[in-house]
Structure formats: structure tokens, C-alpha cells
């Protein structure tokens, strides 16, 4: 979906090895989880898996030295997973898997004393798979998948101890890693939108025409990979994560995971943002990008070195040292980009330093890890005089220290010299004065490196043993073997830089659009030339002076109370407040919207509810009162009228009854005489019928009137 195969100008071999290299550790992790209870077998198995990955990577060597190895899983869950191994990827895979193997081997020696060793080994293997995948993929999307798998799996490693502090550090690590992933994805989104491809290949021709978007892509990629590569100010996850993670994790983190970030930067700055056609006039863009990256690198380098100087804990010191060393690498990447078509020197310095730093820093972390196992403390105040109990460790540590300080004859010297050459070349390229200053900062930072390393070494191994530590267990054969191996690699890299450059570094440039002449010039460079030796002597001298000034102030055991380190720890005064405010503001807006709308919708029935309530008041209070009073009135009226009517009726009844009675008695009187009697027929008042009686009365009245008329009264 995201990868269009480039025109096959180089030999391409199809081989499933890259796919196996990433899947075998993952399958091995599952097997490790199954072997949970059987500690010895599990330790052995985990180590063997790591080793077999290294062997497989090694077996890629003959194929890759002829061209590239590709493997396409087009059907992979609908996306396609594309592997493409060039020499650069192979070299990264080789040293990472080798160091990983040594770390696993070392861990198996003391796994039984650790809590949750199974989980540790399982996630070590998973992280290994993710990390190697980064180096073997052909497009940014596949790279991103492995990159994120690495971040998430390594989170579990960081919080291995499960203390509150470790969890807090892990949370920061995880979320910053995810944020970095977000930036990467966004960069890819824009990239895909602009160019239609995510292939890890020169793409500046398409990008340059897009104007500002190309810078946006560069910025997002830089944040994404720089987060992992601990570029200041994106490094804030690192000191705490390193302080609370086990030393084995720090070892692989410094050796491999930081390098995955650097690898990404390398691929972006020096490949993606390079034109495919070397004579194209687009290099100016790469140059601008490189200039910015150089300064980001110098900032990282200086900040890390200064902060390392003030640490009183071996782990924290090495953490800041790693930041500083990543600064060298980022500066080199910038210089290579700045030099554009002629950037082979920067490229060589970067790749060489990546490998060197991986070995000596991993060795240092493993060694302080084994000391921590015995003392339970890595504060300088509780250490000292360890050289007597740990002769081999001390020797190996010394080798690593000399390497990181850049003593001639140790690998750090060779790569730093190449980087120095690159900076000087960058300055000479356009004679920009700021890059002249950059060179000075570079030298100064190297001096500070020597200074803090001197502090670390003297505080730990020299002087009187701390009385509280008592008799410490002697170093084991396994530890001696592992540390010896590291020291040997460091020495080989330092004593035969010419061979390393010829057989490892120069073939790596094949995948990058560098001028063959510049590449040849790198191959011919002799790092043991007098000016270079003089340069490093200056650095070491500066470091020595700083050290002898500072040692008077007891800076080994007292944490400094200077404003600078706190100011540089931007996490507390910048990230945290900004994040808090943002989160708070967003949440407040959300709550507000929620409340308002909910108020609007649910509240819209409020008026009707209150209307109903008032109606209820009316119903409960007013209506009963009114009803009652009306009822009462009505009842009274009804009663009154009823009484009146009843009275009248009674009166009428009684008067009728009395009339009836009087009539009746009259009739009785009239009818009193028995029938058939003579007397009955006699017309008397007593036996007249009432009617006749009335008729008679009427007649009497009529006749009386008539008589009165007649008489004329």
C-alpha cells in the first residue's frame, strides 16, 4: 500500500531472512512465556534466541554485500509489510543483535535473583523483534510499526521494578513515546499526501516543490525520531526512565533503542530529504535542514554533558552521558546533511560513533548493573574502591571510559575524530561563522565528557571502599566473559579504525546519494594524523582542568544546588504546566459544552415543570378552598331554601289537614244519623251532603242578593 519498489539498479535478492529476524524473537518470547516455571531452560532458551537472531543477521551479510535483500509480505493484514535490507540496515541489525545477545547472556547469570524474570525476558525478546524491524524495513510505515512495537514493549522493561517511581517514569516514557509516534504518523500522513509514497528513498524532488509542507514533515519526523534519540528538549523522559529501569534495560536502550531513533533521523535527514539525482540543485534544502539539526545536536551534546557533570548517581550520570553522546550523533547527522552531496564524512562519523557508543555505553551500564546487584546502591557517596573486588570489571570499565573520552587507540577516538572532521568540513563548506563556534562547542563538550567520566571512574573504582558495603561477592566468570567481550570489541574498533571504515562504514554509504569522491576521501582518512591527536589532547586537557577545579568542591557526592540544572530540566517548568493547562482547558470546555447543552435540553422542560408545580399549588391549595366555600354556600342556600319550602309545604299540609278535618267532622256530623231513618230523609243541616249544603248556601246568597236587588236597598 505504501511502498513502490524502486527501479532495480542494484542487485536485489529475495530472502525471508529479514522477516525471520523479526519474527523469531517474537515467537521466542511466546515460548519463553510457556517456559515460565523452568528457570534454567528459559534463561538458556532466551539467550539462544537472541544469539540465533545474531547468527541470522550474520548470514544476511553475503547477500547484502552484493546488493539489497528484499522481502515483501503483500498480504500482511491488508497493508503489506516490506522488508528491504541494505548495508546500513544490516550493520545496525548486527551490532544491536550482538549487544542484545550479550545483555541477555549477562542477565541469565543473575535472573534467579530478580523479580519476574520471565516477564523481563519475554519483553526483552519482543523489544528485540521490534527494534530490529526498524532497521530492516523498506518504508516508513513498516518502520513505524516496529518502532511503536519497540516503544510499547520496552515500557514493560522500564517499569520492571514496579515501584511507584518506576511506574511514574514509565508513564512518562510511554506517553512521550506515543506522542513521538503520533508525530511520526502525522509526518507520514503529510508525506503520503504530498508524494504518494512512504518508501525510504531519496524524495526531495517531490518534497521540495511543496514549499512549507516539507519543513513540516522534517519537523514532525525530527520530533518523532528525536524523541527516541533523546534530542534536547525532547529528552525529558530519559533521566527518570534510566534512573528507575534496570541496568540491563539501560544497556539495550543506549545501545539499540536510542540508535533506532538515530537511525530514523539518518534515514530522514540524509536519505529522504536528499535528491535522487545528485546533481540536482535541491541540496540547499538539505543544507538548511542540516544546519538546524547540527544545532539541535550541539544543544543536546552540551546539555547532556553539563548535566552529567553534576550527577551524584552512576546511573543518572550515564543517562545524561547517553544524552550527550546522542548529541554527537545528531550533530553528525546534521553535518552530513549540511554537507549534502559531500556529506560522506559526517555520515561515516555518525555511523561509526553509533556503533562505538552502543558498545562502550552498553558495557558501562552492564557493569554498573552488576555492581548494583552487590551494593544495592549507585550513589557515589556509597561507592568507592571497587577496583580491588572487581579487577576485570574495572579494567573493562576503564577501557569503556577511555573510549567514551576519546583516547587514541580506543574506538571513541576514531569516530569522534571523523565527526570532528565533518564539523570542520561543514564550517569550511560555506565558512559560516556559527559553525566555527560549533566546532568549539564540540571540543568543549568532549572535554566535559572526559571530566564527568573521570569523576565516574574515580568515584566508583578508586579511593577507599565504602565501609557500609562490607565484603562484596566476587565477579562471576560469566560477567568477566561478557565485559571482556565488550572491551575487546571496543579495542578492535579503536586499534584498527582503517579496517572498520573500509569494511563497515564505506559499504554503508552505498544506499545514500554521496559523491564517490567524498567517499573515497573518507576511506583514505587517517584518524591518527597529528592534528587530530592534537585536537583530542586539547579536549582532554580542558576536561582535566575542569575536573581539577571542580573536585575541590566535593562535587562527587553533593548534589549541586545550582539553578542551571533545574533550568535545563525543562520538564518541570515547561512541559508539565503546558500539558496541565491544555488538559484543563480542554476538559473545561468539554464540561461547559456538556453542561450548557444538557441544561438546554433537559432544562427546557424546566419551565413546564415549574408550570406544573404552580398548577399543583393551585390544585392543592386554592381549588379545595374555593370548592369548599362554594360547597358550603351552596349547602347553606340549599338548606335554607329547603327549609323554606318544607315549612311552606308543612304549613300547607297542616292547613289542608285542618280544613280536611273540619270538613270531615262536619260531614261526620252531617252523616251522624243512621241510614234509613226518617230523620235522614228530612232535610236538615245535619244530613245534607256537602254539595247540597254548598248549593244551598249559594242559593241563599243568590237569593239574598236578588232580594236585596228587589227591595232596592
Amino acid at each position: 500500500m505504501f511502498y513502490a519498489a524502486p527501479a532495480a539498479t542494484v542487485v536485489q535478492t529475495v530472502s525471508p531472512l529479514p522477516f525471520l529476524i523479526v519474527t523469531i524473537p517474537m515467537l521466542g518470547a511466546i515460548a519463553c512465556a510457556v517456559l515460565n516455571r523452568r528457570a534454567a531452560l528459559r534463561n538458556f532458551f532466551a539467550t539462544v534466541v537472541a544469539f540465533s537472531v545474531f547468527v541470522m543477521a550474520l548470514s544476511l551479510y553475503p547477500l547484502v554485500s552484493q546488493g539489497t535483500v528484499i522481502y515483501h509480505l503483500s498480504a500482511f493484514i491488508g497493508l503489506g509489510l516490506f522488508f528491504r535490507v541494505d548495508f546500513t540496515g544490516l550493520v545496525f541489525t548486527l551490532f544491536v543483535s550482538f549487544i542484545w545477545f550479550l545483555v541477555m547472556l549477562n542477565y541469565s547469570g543473575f535472573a534467579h535473583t530478580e523479580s519476574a524474570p520471565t516477564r523481563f525476558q519475554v519483553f526483552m525478546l519482543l523489544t528485540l523483534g521490534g527494534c530490529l524491524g526498524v532497521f530492516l524495513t523498506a518504508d516508513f510505515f513498516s518502520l513505524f510499526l516496529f518502532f511503536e512495537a519497540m516503544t510499547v514493549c520496552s515500557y514493560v522493561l522500564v517499569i520492571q521494578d514496579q515501584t511507584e517511581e518506576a511506574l511514574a517514569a514509565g508513564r512518562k516514557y510511554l506517553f512521550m513515546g506515543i506522542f513521538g509516534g503520533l508525530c511520526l504518523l502525522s509526518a507520514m500522513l503529510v508525506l503520503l499526501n504530498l508524494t504518494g509514497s512512504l518508501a525510504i528513498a531519496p524524495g526531495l524532488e517531490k518534497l521540495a516543490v511543496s514549499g512549507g509542507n516539507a519543513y513540516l514533515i522534517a519537523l514532525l519526523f525530527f520530533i518523532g525520531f528525536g524523541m527516541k534519540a533523546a534530542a534536547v528538549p525532547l529528552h525529558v523522559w530519559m533521566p527518570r526512565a534510566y534512573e528507575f529501569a534496570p541496568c540491563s534495560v539501560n544497556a539495550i536502550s543506549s545501545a539499540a533503542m536510542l540508535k533506532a531513533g538515530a537511525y530514523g533521523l539518518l534515514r530522514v535527514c540524509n536519505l529522504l530529504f536528499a535528491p535522487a539525482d545528485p546533481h540536482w540543485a535541491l541540496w540547499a534544502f538539505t543544507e538548511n535542514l542540516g544546519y538546524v539539526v547540527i544545532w539541535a545536536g550541539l544543544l543536546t551534546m552540551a546539555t547532556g554533558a553539563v548535566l552529567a557533570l553534576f550527577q551524584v548517581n552512576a546511573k543518572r550520570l550515564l543517562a545524561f552521558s547517553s544524552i550527550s553522546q546522542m548529541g554527537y550523533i545528531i550533530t553528525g547527522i546534521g553535518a552530513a546533511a549540511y554537507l549534502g552531496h559531500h556529506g560522506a564524512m559526517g555520515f561515516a562519523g555518525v555511523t561509526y560513533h553509533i556503533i562505538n557508543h552502543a558498545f562502550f555505553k552498553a558495557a558501562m551500564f552492564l557493569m554498573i548493573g552488576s555492581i548494583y546487584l552487590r551494593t544495592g546502591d549507585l550513589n557515589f557517596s556509597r561507592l568507592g574502591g571497587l577496583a580491588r573486588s572487581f579487577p576485570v570489571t574495572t579494567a573493562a570499565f576503564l577501557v569503556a571510559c577511555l573510549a567514551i573520552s576519546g583516547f587514541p587507540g580506543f574506538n571513541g577516538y576514531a569516530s569522534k575524530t571523523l565527526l570532528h572532521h565533518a564539523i570542520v568540513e561543514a564550517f569550511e563548506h560555506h565558512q559560516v561563522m556559527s559553525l566555527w563556534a560549533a566546532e568549539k562547542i564540540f571540543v568543549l563538550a568532549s572535554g566535559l565528557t572526559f571530566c564527568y567520566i573521570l569523576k565516574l571512574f574515580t568515584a566508583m573504582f578508586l579511593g577507599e571502599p565504602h565501609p557500609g558495603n562490607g565484603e562484596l561477592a566476587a565477579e562471576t566468570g560469566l560477567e568477566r566473559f561478557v565485559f571482556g567481550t565488550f572491551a575487546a570489541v571496543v579495542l578492535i574498533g579503536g586499534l584498527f579504525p582503517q579496517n572498520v571504515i573500509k569494511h563497515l562504514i564505506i559499504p554503508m554509504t552505498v544506499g545514500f546519494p554521496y559523491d564517490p569522491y567524498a567517499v573515497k576521501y573518507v576511506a583514505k582518512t587517517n584518524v591518527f594524523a597529528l592534528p587530530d591527536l592534537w585536537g583530542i589532547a586539547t579536549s582532554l586537557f580542558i576536561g582535566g582542568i575542569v575536573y581539577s577545579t571542580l573536585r575541590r568542591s566535593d562535587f562527587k557526592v553533593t548534589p549541586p544546588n545550582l539553578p542551571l540544572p533545574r533550568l535545563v530540566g525543562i520538564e518541570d517548568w515547561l512541559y508539565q504546566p503546558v500539558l496541565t493547562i491544555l488538559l484543563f482547558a480542554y476538559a473545561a470546555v468539554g464540561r461547559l459544552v456538556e453542561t450548557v447543552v444538557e441544561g438546554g435540553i433537559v432544562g427546557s422542560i424546566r419551565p413546564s415543570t415549574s408550570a406544573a408545580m404552580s398548577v399543583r399549588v393551585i390544585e392543592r391549595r386554592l381549588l379545595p378552598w374555593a370548592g369548599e366555600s362554594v360547597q358550603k354556600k351552596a349547602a347553606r342556600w340549599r338548606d335554607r331554601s329547603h327549609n323554606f319550602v318544607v315549612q311552606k309545604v308543612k304549613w300547607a299540609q297542616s292547613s289542608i289537614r285542618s280544613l280536611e278535618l273540619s270538613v270531615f267532622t262536619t260531614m261526620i256530623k252531617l252523616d251522624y244519623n243512621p241510614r234509613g231513618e226518617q230523620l235522614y230523609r228530612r232535610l236538615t243541616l245535619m244530613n245534607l251532603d256537602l254539595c247540597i249544603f254548598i248549593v244551598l248556601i249559594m242559593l241563599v246568597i243568590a237569593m239574598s242578593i236578588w232580594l236585596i236587588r228587589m227591595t232596592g236597598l
Partner: protein
Amino acid sequence: MEISPFWSILVPVIGAVLVALIREEGDRPRHAVAVSTTIITFTLVATAFPAVLGGETFSFTLFQISRGLSIAFTVEPLGMIFAFLASMLWMFAMVYSTGYMSHEHHRRRYFTFYTVALSATMGVAFSANLFTLYIFYEYLALITYPLVIHEQTEEAYAAGTKYIIYCFSSGALVFLAMFSLGGLGEGLTFTPTGVLLPAVADHRLLLSLMFFVCVAGFGVKAAIMPLHSWLPSAMVAPTPVSALLHAVAIVKTGVFGVIRVMFYLFGVETLKELGVANVLSAVLVLTILIASILAIKQEKLKSRLAYSTIGQLGYITLGATMLSPLGVAGGVAHIVNHAILKIVLFFCAGAVITQTGVTHIHQMKGIGRRMPYTMFFFTLAALGLIGVLPLAGYISKLYLLGGSLQAGKPVLGFVLLVSAVLNSIYYFPIIIAAYFQEGSFEAPKGLESPPSMFIPTAVLMVFGFLFGLFAHYTTLPIVNRVVAAIFQL
């Protein structure tokens, strides 16, 4: 004519009647009837699936009220996706319910309404026109009310009231739109290209207005941001109800409704002509971001899941508003992926709640020891929703990203990425607390939760894997059919 899928609307009603007839104590027969009802329904839907995938559509008019107003059903790809998904998940949720509800009260009422709600959902899925859709939409709101207030506490009643107010207001809006648009397009029958294009010239303003009215109507249930707050409150319901209705069925009817209206009523051309989708996109962007941030602030497990749902529903609708084939495909595929993963999350939350009584995230420290597998499923599902390969979820997000590019709006893609980060910020602390922090939980004796709860969770999680790993053989073929129909590809 093949009408078997239409029986799936009727079968749950019959099943519910049977369930209602069984007395309160008869748990076993009730469970048997309820579960087999869902199985039968699923089978009815599933049998029609191959034919729909093959390109056939069935339709069936129940009766014609008047010209342009009928109750009619149709089986076509989009509805099929929804029906298939809902009936499948209902089956698992019903089995889960039998375990979850075993100690609850009013089981008869619960199972009755739980069963009959399936019928309404099937009705929504198979509706052939807006009128039918509206009827089933309201029917569903009404039926689920007893489920929301199941606990019968003051809080539950308050949530229920809020729920019913929101649902009916949304129904009213849909009704308004239905009558305003009624005369403009062929009885508002859903057709993949939309029916309102001829009306654009004369009724531009009305159409734009009614688009928003309609979207607001369905958007209430799709929990588009200002209209979402019923969803978190409705979490007082028992967990299977939250799981199925509020993460899967109800909210998805809303989303389904929005998609239906957008593409099958208005149509892509009409929307492009009107230019209203951009406004909706902006609203959805805010929905996604704000919901995700509010989710971070939630302390209650279920509330956090609820806000997560709001954000994830935003993805679906956002995919639709991109008006690009990949975006729509991503949105529709996310209906499926989100449903499966979110129901697993809810099932796990329910298992945690019933087995340990833990409801808040700060109480979950070390719970991975007590419920290792449950929390493992939870972790996987959460990772899936964040978009981690190869779990379901990544594929839809990828399509949405592709869609944003296809539509020429990379900003929307960027929002999705930010939201994915926010997702991880609110999911990871739960996982970390469960596995890496010290707590007072002890290892379980025997199975960590009843088999009726454990097995559906496990099976669905396997589905979550398969739908991610084999998306090209599961979700995407039918989704592509939908997209092909909508965009006339």
C-alpha cells in the same frame, strides 16, 4: 421472493412474548427461550448474508398508508452489515446477560425488553424509507427505557428521564425533517445515490437546514458532541445493557441513521452541492477531541468507556463526512470493529464489577492478579481501539486516514492521530494499574468469572483478532459493496 430476513423483526417479538409468559423464578426456560430467539434471529439474518454480498437486494412492503408513505423493508449491504452485527452481538450479549443477571431482580422484565429490543434494531436495519426508520427508531427508544431504569434507584430514574427526553426530542427532529422533505423525493425511499438531488436547485436552504435537523435528530443517539450527555448518564443501567445498547445497538442506530440520511437520502452529489458536510466535520472534530479528553478525566470505569464511545462514534461519522470512498469505508468498517471491541471492554468491565465489586479505576490496582484473562481481553480490546495491529480497529482507522487524504483534508487525519494518542492516554493507565501496580487482590479459585460471561468475552475477542487479521475476508468485502453503491464505483 425471499423474505426470511424480515422474519428477524418478528421473531424477537414472539420470543419476547414467550419470555414474558415465564414466571420470575423460571430462569432456565427463560434463558433457553431468550438465547434461542437471538440465535434464530441471527440465523435468519445470516442466511441472507451471502446473497446480499453477491449483490442481491430484497424488498418487501408491509403496507401502503398512502402514496409516498409506506412501511417497507429492504435488505441491502449497509443494513445487512448492521443487522448482521447487531444480531450476532445480541446473541453473545444475551448469553452474557444470563450470567450477569443471575443475582439481579426483575429478571423477567429485563429479558423481555432485552429480547424485544432486538426486533426494533432489526427494523431499523432493514427499513426501506425514512418513515419506517423513524417508527422503529422511536420504538427502540421506548423499549429500552425499562432497561435503562432497571436498577430503579433515584439516579436510574433521573438517567431514564434524561434518556427519554433526549430520545424523543431527537425523534421529533427526525419527524420534522421527514415532513419537510416528504414532498421532495420519491417517498424518502433509501437509494444508494440519494433521492434529493433534483430538489437542490429549488430548495437549497430548506435542504441544508433539514440536513442539520436530520443529523441532529439521529445525532442525539450517535452522541455527536453537544447532544451526547444522555450516554454517560445512561451507564447506570446493568452492564450488558450498557454494553449492547449504549456501545453497540442504540448508538449505532444513531450512526446508522446519520449515514442513511447522508448517503441514501441526500446522496454524495447533493451533499457536495450543498457543502454542509464540512460543518459537520468540524463539529465531529470537536466531539472526538473533547470526548477523548473528558474520558481521561473520568474516574469511573464505565463512564470512561462511555466517553470513549462518544469519541469513537465520532470517527464513524467523521468518516462519512469526508465524502470520500475510503473515508466512508473506514467509517462503516469502524461500526463493526468498534462494536466488537467495545462490547468486549464492557463485558470485561461487567465481569470486574460483578466478581469484585470494583467500579472505579483507582480501585483496579493489581486486579490483573484476580482476573488475569479478563484483563488480558480488556487490554487487547483497548489496544485494538487505539489502533494497534493486528487487532480490529487499525484497519478502519487506516481507511479513515486514507479517506482524509483522498478527500484532501489531512487535518482530519491528524485529528484521528491525536485522538489515537488520547485513546492510549485513557486506556493505558487502566492496563498499567491492573497489571503493574500492587493491590490486594488474590488469584482466583477456578474460573475467574462464570462461564456464561467468560466465554462470550473470549469468543468475541477472538473475533476482534480475526476481523483485524482477515479484514479483507470479513468486513471489507461487504463494506466495499456499500461504498461502491454510494459512490457509483
